[in-house]
C-alpha cells in the first residue's frame, strides 16, 4: 500500500523515503562519530577505549535500529488503526445485503488502492482523485483502464469511506515519517555526544550484536510456533465440523465435496508407514554398507570422488525421483510381476504401475545417499585409537568394524535412520507419482495406496472452500504429520544424546 501512495520523489513512497533517509543518517553518523572519537583522543587511536570503527558502528546502530524498529511496528499496526477509524463511516445498510463487514472493508481498501494506482498511472490527477464523486464519474471504468477491476458499481458511502481511508493513511504516513526521522536524529545526537575516548563503544556494539542474534533466534522459533498455532486453529475448526472419532478411528477415506464425507486418517497413515518402511528396508542396509565401505576400506582417492558424488545425489529434487518412479521403476515392476497378462515371473499380480513397492523402492533410493552420508560422518567420528586397540588384539578388519566401530557408532546411526524415517514420512512428490491415489489398508505391496502428504495436496488444490471439513481435514492431517515427524526427531535426538559415547 505504501508504494502505491506515490507522492514521493523517485517513485518512492513515504516509507521508502524514510528508510533511505535513515540509512543516509546512519552512514553520516558512522563517519561523524568516528571522527569525533578520534578528535577527542587527539588523533591518536591508541588512546581510544575501542578501535575507531566501533564508535562509528555504535552510532549507526543507535540511529538505525530504534528508527527502523518503530517503522516496522508502525507499518504493521497502521492499516488496522485506519480501518477502525473508517468503520464508522459505513452505514449498517451497506453491510446488511448478505455480506459481512470484512467484505465491505476489503472493498473499501480495494477502491482506495485503485485510486492510488490510477493517480500513479496518470489516469487521474491527485485532486481529481480526492474530489471524485460516485455519481459524476464512472469510477469502475476509470479504474478498469489502469488494471484495477471492481466487482460492482461503487456506492457513494463506500467511496466516501475509501476517500477517508486514503486521507487518513496519507496523514498517518507523514506522522510516521516525522516520528521515525526524529527517533533517528535523537539516536544520532546521543551517539555523537557519547563518542568520546573513554566511551566503551566496543562493548556497546557487542551488546548490539548479541541482541541481533537473539532476535534472529527468536524469530525462527516464533515462526515455528506461529505455523503450529495456525494449523492448530484450523484443526480445531475441522474437529468442530467433523467427529474426531471418525478421523482417528474410522477406516475409510472417502472425501465427498457434497458433504457427508468419511475422513479417516488410518488408511493414509497405513500407506505412509508402509511406504516409509519399504524405503527404509532398501535404504538402511545399502546406505550403511556404502558408508562402511567408504569410511573403512576405500582409499583416499576413491573417497574424494565418491563422497561428493553421493552428496550431489542427495541434492536431486524429489520430483526427479518421482519421474523415475513413474517412467522406469513402475513399468519395470509391471514387466516383472505382470498386469493382465503374465509378467517375467509368470504372475499377474499388479493392477497398475503405481504401487506401494514402486514408491517405496524409489524413496529408498532417494534415502541411500542421505543415510550413507550421515553414517559415514558418524563412523569417521569413531576414534582411530579404538580401531588400533582392536587390531592390536589380533582382530581382523571386519571383526573390528562389527564389534567395535559399529557398536560405538550405533547411537548415531540409529539417529540417522530415524531422521531418514521422518524424511520418508514427509516425502510428497515420489508418492504422488509412484504410489497412486487409492486410500486403503492392505498388506499387499503391489497395490496402489496413498499417503498423508498426497491427500493434503489433493484436498487443498482446485476449488476449495475453507469452511468445509473436506478442506479443513488437510490441516488436521498436516498437524498429525507434524507431530509424527517431530516425535521421530525428538526420539532420534534423545537416543543420540543418551547413548553417545563421550570420547575425550
Amino acid at each position, binding site marked *: 500500500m505504501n508504494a502505491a501512495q506515490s507522492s514521493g520523489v523517485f517513485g518512492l513512497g513515504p516509507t521508502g523515503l524514510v528508510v533511505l533517509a535513515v540509512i543516509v543518517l546512519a552512514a553520516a553518523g558512522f563517519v561523524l562519530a568516528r571522527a569525533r572519537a578520534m578528535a577527542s583522543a587527539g588523533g591518536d587511536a591508541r588512546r581510544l577505549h575501542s578501535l575507531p570503527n566501533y564508535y562509528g558502528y555504535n552510532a549507526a546502530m543507535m540511529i538505525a535500529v530504534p528508527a527502523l524498529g518503530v517503522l516496522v511496528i508502525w507499518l504493521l499496526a497502521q492499516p488496522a488503526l485506519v480501518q477502525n477509524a473508517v468503520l464508522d463511516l459505513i452505514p449498517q445498510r451497506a453491510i446488511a445485503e448478505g455480506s459481512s463487514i470484512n467484505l465491505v472493508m476489503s472493498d473499501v481498501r480495494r477502491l482506495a488502492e485503485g485510486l492510488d494506482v490510477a493517480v500513479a498511472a496518470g489516469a487521474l490527477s491527485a485532486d481529481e482523485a480526492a474530489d471524485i464523486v460516485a455519481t459524476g464519474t464512472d469510477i469502475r471504468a476509470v479504474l478498469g483502464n489502469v488494471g484495477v477491476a471492481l466487482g460492482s458499481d461503487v456506492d457513494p458511502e463506500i467511496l466516501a469511506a475509501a476517500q477517508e481511508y486514503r486521507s487518513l493513511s496519507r496523514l498517518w504516513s507523514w506522522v510516521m515519517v516525522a516520528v521515525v526521522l526524529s527517533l533517528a536524529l535523537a539516536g544520532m545526537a546521543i551517539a555523537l555526544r557519547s563518542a568520546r575516548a573513554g566511551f566503551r563503544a566496543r562493548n556497546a556494539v557487542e551488546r548490539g550484536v548479541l541482541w541481533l542474534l537473539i532476535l534472529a533466534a527468536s524469530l525462527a522459533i516464533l515462526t515455528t510456533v506461529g505455523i503450529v498455532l495456525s494449523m492448530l486453529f484450523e484443526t480445531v475448526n475441522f474437529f468442530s465440523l467433523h467427529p474426531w472419532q471418525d478421523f482417528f478411528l474410522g477406516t475409510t477415506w472417502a472425501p465427498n465435496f457434497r458433504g457427508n464425507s468419511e475422513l479417516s486418517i488410518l488408511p493414509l497413515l497405513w500407506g505412509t508407514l508402509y511406504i516409509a518402511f519399504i524405503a527404509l528396508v532398501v535404504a538402511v542396509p545399502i546406505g550403511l554398507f556404502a558408508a562402511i565401505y567408504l569410511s573403512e576400506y576405500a*582409499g583416499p582417492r576413491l573417497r574424494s570422488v565418491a563422497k561428493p558424488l553421493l552428496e550431489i545425489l542427495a541434492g536431486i529434487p524429489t520430483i526427479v525421483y518421482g519421474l523415475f518412479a513413474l517412467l522406469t521403476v513402475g513399468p519395470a515392476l509391471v514387466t516383472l510381476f505382470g498386469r493382465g497378462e503374465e509378467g517375467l515371473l509368470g504372475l499377474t499380480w499388479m493392477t497398475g504401475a503405481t504401487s506401494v513397492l514402486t514408491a517405496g523402492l524409489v524413496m529408498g533410493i532417494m534415502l541411500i545417499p542421505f543415510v550413507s552420508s550421515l553414517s559415514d560422518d558418524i563412523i569417521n567420528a569413531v*576414534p582411530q*585409537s*579404538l*580401531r*588400533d*586397540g*582392536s*587390531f*592390536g*588384539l*589380533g*582382530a*581382523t578388519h571386519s*571383526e573390528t568394524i562389527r*564389534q*567395535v566401530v559399529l*557398536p*560405538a557408532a550405533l547411537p548415531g546411526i540409529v539417529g540417522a535412520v530415524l531422521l531418514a524415517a521422518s524424511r520418508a514420512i514427509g516425502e510428497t512428490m515420489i508418492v504422488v507419482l509412484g504410489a497412486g491415489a487409492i486410500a486403503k489398508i492392505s498388506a499387499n505391496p503391489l497395490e496402489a495406496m496413498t499417503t498423508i502428504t498426497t491427500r493434503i495436496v489433493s484436498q487443498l488444490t482446485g476449488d476449495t472452500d475453507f469452511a468445509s471439513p473436506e478442506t479443513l481435514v488437510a490441516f488436521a492431517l498436516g498437524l498429525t504429520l507434524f507431530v509424527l515427524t517431530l516425535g521421530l526427531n525428538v526420539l532420534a535426538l534423545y537416543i543420540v544424546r543418551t547413548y553417545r*559415547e*563421550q570420547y575425550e
Partner: protein
Amino acid sequence: MNDMRLSERAVDAQNIKIAARNVQVYYGDNHAIKDVSVDIEDKTVTAFIGPSGCGKSTFLRCINRMNDTIDICRVEGDILIDGEDIYDREVDPVQLRAKVGMVFQKPNPFPKSIYDNVAYGPRIHGLSRGKSDLDDIVERALRRAAIWDEVKDRLSAPGTGLSGGQQQRLCIARAVATEPEVLLMDEPCSALDPIATAQVEELIDELRQNYSVVIVTHSMQQAARVSQKTAFFHLGHLVEYGETGHIFTNPEDPRTESYITGRIG
C-alpha cells in the same frame, strides 16, 4: 640367515625373544627407522627412550606389524620372534598380534562393559571352552592387571566409565587376556597421574615374570625404575643399547649422554 640364527642360539639360547636385523622403515619418502638391529630378551623389561619423533613408536609398531595398517608405511629388514621371521609371507599379521600384545599411549577401552573389554580377545581367538572358562580368563587377566578388586562388583559397567589409570590397567588386562608372549607398551603412563603411574609401573614389573615387555617412555626415571635393558634412539638410529644401569651411569655415546643429562630432548 640360518647361520645367524644358529649363532644367536649358541650365544643366548633361551634368552633372545625378539631379534631385529637391519630394519628400515619409510613413511612415503620419510626414512623413519635407519638400519636398526637389536636383540630383545625374554622375561625382561626393555625401555626405548629418545627425543620425540626419533622413531620409538614406529619401531615398536614393527614388532606386531601394526604399521601394516598405515598405507604409506614400508618396512624392510627382518624381525624374528623365537627365530621366526614375522614379516614372512606365511605369517598372518592378525595371528601375530594375538601373540604380541600392545598397550597404547592413551587408554582406549572399547565402549563395552568391563567384562566384554577383557573377553574381546579370547572371544575372537576362541580361547575359552565355555562361559565359566571365559569368566576365569577374564578374572585372571583382571587380577594380573591389578584391577580386579576395584571392578569385580561392576563387571557389566562400561569400561569407558573408569578413571584414566583404571582404564589403562583395563587395557593391560585386555592385552594379557589373549595370553601374549610379548607385551608392547607405547608410553602407557603419559596420560596418567603419578599414583596411577606408580600402579602401572608396579604392574609392569610383575608382568616381567611371564612376558617380554617392551616399553616406550619419555621419562628417564621411569626407564630407570622399570627396565633392565634400555635402547636409546636418535633421529631414527639406534644409538646405544645395553643394561639400563650401564646406560644411565656410563653412556658410551655422547648423544646418549646429552639426552640423559637433558641437553637434547
